[in-house]
């Protein structure tokens, strides 16, 4: 990978992460490592039924057992537990059902909490759970979205199984499809996924009688604080939320969970610290799931491959309740199906459906991978229909680099990009023509191992989000971010960020930005985050927003500090502020040798012996940043797979990704994000699926059943970048957290299907397991024989 870096600047340097020495040597502080004097442990009893009326809960058997301090049922919380929030009512017709943190009268998915035990240790709590009696009156499970929408379906909630429906139109869709020489009509299934962050969730709640502190493995300490106040009625100023080290989230910790609310309530009831930490199996059941859509997509094109119109109709599985942004997830894809392509008309429809399963919500990419998958699959189908190279059909439709800024059919304005450059680079690195030749050869020879080549381009709306646009989308909050910077007396710098890292490396990247902005050494910067008492304002981390919004807020705060320093320097150096130039961390009087470094000025501000009028004794400042527009990373991913047609096994042979994430602050971190993202996208393409049985039991409760790829299952990735700076922020950055996940899934599935096209196969449902591939091949071969 080529690394561009301006001399003497930190931004652009492949700095090793400041965080890692501590994390790698086990000196991290996960929530589950924390201990408080007198701390109690809670374990939850969870529903074994997908849908049932609770007719009796008797916790008395647990109460007398050794070490047990308390046992509660939903009834015990009924008066105070409120309803878990949904912050995104996406439509007028939306139904937001009551969502009690602990079920009181009805359970609607396997794993929903129905009772709990608080004990002096976890073992005693787990033992005592077995002494709780619950009687259920079974109700029919609702598992299939299409059936759920039929008139005679059993209901998940009294109001019915439809959560909402949305329709969006742009251009004359009828005209686009009328007389279109080519119409591609496909249905794809986005299987349900389990986020599987490395660190399972954990919560610790404590109180001193007046105020409450909640430590949680969360991505969103600030949002959580507000929501805990809203849900429980505890005044916001009496709640402090701390996200200590958090080991991954991928959206799964962008949530206000039942366990967070209940631990807080138990700390209040008992006046003691209460901790809960989930097991992996408990997490598989009860961490919100991702994806789960049925996508009906229709594309009308001219005979030369030009797209006329696109029609998308989604069924999106909400699960049993609407959680923090559950209904918003498919809507984040609404403007993305048209992707990087130009077209005359676009229609998007989505129906949210309740089922008796764990609710879905944000999972890496959130709505955008789903959209990208469908359009990129269909572009390959269009190419196949036209006997055209899949890259060529994309070239004929994409927005050309000279056309930016470009307002798309779905109404977004893409500020910058160069799809030609990224694609050219990727095809060269991949050895596209050579692989096509090998593919032809294998086809000719009838080799049992066929080669498939998969293409995916993508763009994504990142940097969530302009507050104004969130308001238009009816989201309950804004999308700004806050940053603060203070020079300490000795000239070191403390930065506070409202974003809440959980593995991304903010401390390192923010240090680089600050080092450049203030001219201080990288090593002299520290970054504080994740504690509402320290970082008092913030919107947290998700949607590839941290750098694009939060990093810019920090930069703006630095600029304000520099302005203050300039005034102070002018006073000390006895010149006009305009005579000063800022260079390498010092203000110099133009044309002279006299100067003051930032460190000297920090000391001067601290001693305050000689401050000019109107200048306070502090060299610090803060800022919020609210972007005018989203940012739009893009890229081209190419994947070659070998498909063993005898066993159905798919092996990835090579993978090339050329991403354009705008300006890069730290290429190492960018590369790490892309690697992880591609791995997760490949996980969806080939390995992962949350499976429920016909009664609504989750079958994939362990990692032996829910297969995650590890390094041993993945090829080396060849990565490179192009750089089209974003115009919506001063650093020109676009965000990289989700890119890999978005592009890789369709690239891999397109490759699998490409390998099998000679068999007459034009789709394999995800994940493309060996068994699915083998069945498709066998059926195709039988069809030929018949």
């Amino acid at each position: 990978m080529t690394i561009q870096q301006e001399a003497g600047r930190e931004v652009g340097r492949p700095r090793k992460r400041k965080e890692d020495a501590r994390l790698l040597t086990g000196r991290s502080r996960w929530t589950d490592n924390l201990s408080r004097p007198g701390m109690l442990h809670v374990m939850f009893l969870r529903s074994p039924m997908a849908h049932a009326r609770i007719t009796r809960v008797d916790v008395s058997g647990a109460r007398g057992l050794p070490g047990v301090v308390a046992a509660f049922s939903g009834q015990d919380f009924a008066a105070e537990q409120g309803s878990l929030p949904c912050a995104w009512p996406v439509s007028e017709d939306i139904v937001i059902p009551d969502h009690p943190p602990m079920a009181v009268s009805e359970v609607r998915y396997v794993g929903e909490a129905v009772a709990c035990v608080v004990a002096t240790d976890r073992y005693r709590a787990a033992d005592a759970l077995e002494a709780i009696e619950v009687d259920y009156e079974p109700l029919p499970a609702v598992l299939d979205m299409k059936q759920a929408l039929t008139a005679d379906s059993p209901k998940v909630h009294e109001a019915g199984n439809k959560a909402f429906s949305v329709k969006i139109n742009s251009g004359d869709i009828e005209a686009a499809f009328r007389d279109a020489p080519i119409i591609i009509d496909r249905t794809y299934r986005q299987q349900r996924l389990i986020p599987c962050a490395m660190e399972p969730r954990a919560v610790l709640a404590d109180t001193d009688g007046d105020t409450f502190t909640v430590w949680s493995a969360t991505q969103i300490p600030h949002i959580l604080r507000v929501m805990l106040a809203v849900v429980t009625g505890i005044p916001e100023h009496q709640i402090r939320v701390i996200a200590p080290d958090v080991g991954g989230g991928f959206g799964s910790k962008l949530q206000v969970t039942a366990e967070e609310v209940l631990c807080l309530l138990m700390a209040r009831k008992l006046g003691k610290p209460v901790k809960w930490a989930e097991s992996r199996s408990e997490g598989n059941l009860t961490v919100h799931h991702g994806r789960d859509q049925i996508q009906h997509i229709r594309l009308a094109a001219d005979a030369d491959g030009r797209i006329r119109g696109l029609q998308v109709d989604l069924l999106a599985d909400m699960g049993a309740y609407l959680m923090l942004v559950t209904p918003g997830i498919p809507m984040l894809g609404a403007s993305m199906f048209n992707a990087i392509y130009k077209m005359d008309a676009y229609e998007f429809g989505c129906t949210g459906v309740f089922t008796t399963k764990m609710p879905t919500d944000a999972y890496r990419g959130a709505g955008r991978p789903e959209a990208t998958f469908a359009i990129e699959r269909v572009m390959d189908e269009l190419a196949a229909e036209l006997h055209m190279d899949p890259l060529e059909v994309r070239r004929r439709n994409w927005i050309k680099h000279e056309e930016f800024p470009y307002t798309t059919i779905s109404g977004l304005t893409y500020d910058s990009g160069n799809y030609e450059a990224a694609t050219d680079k990727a095809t060269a690195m991949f050895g596209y023509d050579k692989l096509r030749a090998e593919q032809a050869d294998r086809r000719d020879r009838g080799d049992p191992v066929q080669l498939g080549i998969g293409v995916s381009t993508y763009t994504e709306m990142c940097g969530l989000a302009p507050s104004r646009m969130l308001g238009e989308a009816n989201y309950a909050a804004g999308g700004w971010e806050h940053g603060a910077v203070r020079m300490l007396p000795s000239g070191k710098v403390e930065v506070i960020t409202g974003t809440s890292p959980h593995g991304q490396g903010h401390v390192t990247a923010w240090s680089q930005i600050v080092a450049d902005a203030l001219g201080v050494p990288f090593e002299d910067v520290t970054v504080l985050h994740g504690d509402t008492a320290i970082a008092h304002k913030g919107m947290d981390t998700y949607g590839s927003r941290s750098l694009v919004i939060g990093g810019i807020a920090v930069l703006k705060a630095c600029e304000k500090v520099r302005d203050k320093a300039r005034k102070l320097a002018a006073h000390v150096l006895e010149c006009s502020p305009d005579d000063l130039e800022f260079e390498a961390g010092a203000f110099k009087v133009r044309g002279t040798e006299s100067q003051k470094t930032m460190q000297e000025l920090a000391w001067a501000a601290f001693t305050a012996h000689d401050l000019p009028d109107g200048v306070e004794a502090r060299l610090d400042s803060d800022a919020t940043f609210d972007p005018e527009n989203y940012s739009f990373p893009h890229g081209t991913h190419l994947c070659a797979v070998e498909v063993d047609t005898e066993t159905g096994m798919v092996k990835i042979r090579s993978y090339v990704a050329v991403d354009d994430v705008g300006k890069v602050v730290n290429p190492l971190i960018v590369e790490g994000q892309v690697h992880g993202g591609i791995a997760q996208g490949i996980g969806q393409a080939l390995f992962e699926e949350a499976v429920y049985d016909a009664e609504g039991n989750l079958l994939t409760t362990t990692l032996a059943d829910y297969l995650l790829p590890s390094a041993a299952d993945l090829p080396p990735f060849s990565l490179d970048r192009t750089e089209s700076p974003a115009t919506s922020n001063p650093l020109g950055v676009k965000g990289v957290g989700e890119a890999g996940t978005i592009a890789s899934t369709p690239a891999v599935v397109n490759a699998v299907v490409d390998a099998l096209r000679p068999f007459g196969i034009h789709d394999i449902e995800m994940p493309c397991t060996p068994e699915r591939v083998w069945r498709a091949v066998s059926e195709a071969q039988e069809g030929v024989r018949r």
Partner: protein
Amino acid sequence: MIPAQFDYVRPESLSEASQVLASDEDAKVLAGGQSLLPLLRLRLAYPSTLVDVGRLPELKGVHDRGDHVFIGAMATHDEVMRSDVVRAGCPLVAMAAAHVADPAIRHRGTFGGSLAHADPAGDLPAVVLALDGVFVARSAQGEREIPAAEFFVDYWESSLGPGEILAGVKIPKLGEGWGFQYEKFHRTAQAWAIVGVAAAVKRSNGAITEARIGLTNMGPTPLRARATETALQGMELGDQLRQACEEAAADTSPPADLHAQPDYRRHLARVLTHRAVRTAAGAP
């Protein structure tokens, strides 16, 4: 891990260990813990006492005993796959051990534990069955030898009696002319076999004179593909091998689970047997 309460003992002698086991039918042997601890964690097992056999000298090491290799029950997978004695005397065992799970698990999990656990999805049972290993069980009553064909009874059930501890397994050395291959079909590197095939093939003057084929995860116990073994006798390498391997799934009753339905497992058994036999027979 939050298991139910249990006691723990670590006897210094085999007789002491077998006494504890004989006196308490809810006591269980603890070897590497790689199968037992997950069961405890999920509260699928509630043993009263775990009898840690890690200190018993009789269970340790790998020994060359002339006509056979004795692999102690407490030899770890990692020890087995790296042992020169195993690689020389029964290379198929080393090959299969290298396929078990991942390095962390191979450093804890034991050869004996894998076999005593009698999971038909485990890689080693089919191998020991194909090689006609002899199980050596010890109890207060003394020592008992159990042929591999009688050791595996059902899913997770062996013929070890109450109070019996597996001391190790004798693997006969096969001598000249044999080739070996273990084909494991799984979706991720550390996953269990969907199907596995262990093949030992002897050739002389170009033709196969004897073949032994063990099947992993094709029924409640590991199985031998007897029909294919017979059909292969006297065969030269070539297209007819595939024909013989079409019988590989005969008399099997493979399970249905998230990773494969029975018909797919049968198909895999045929394809993998063909591949394993070809490789073991030295086909190019």
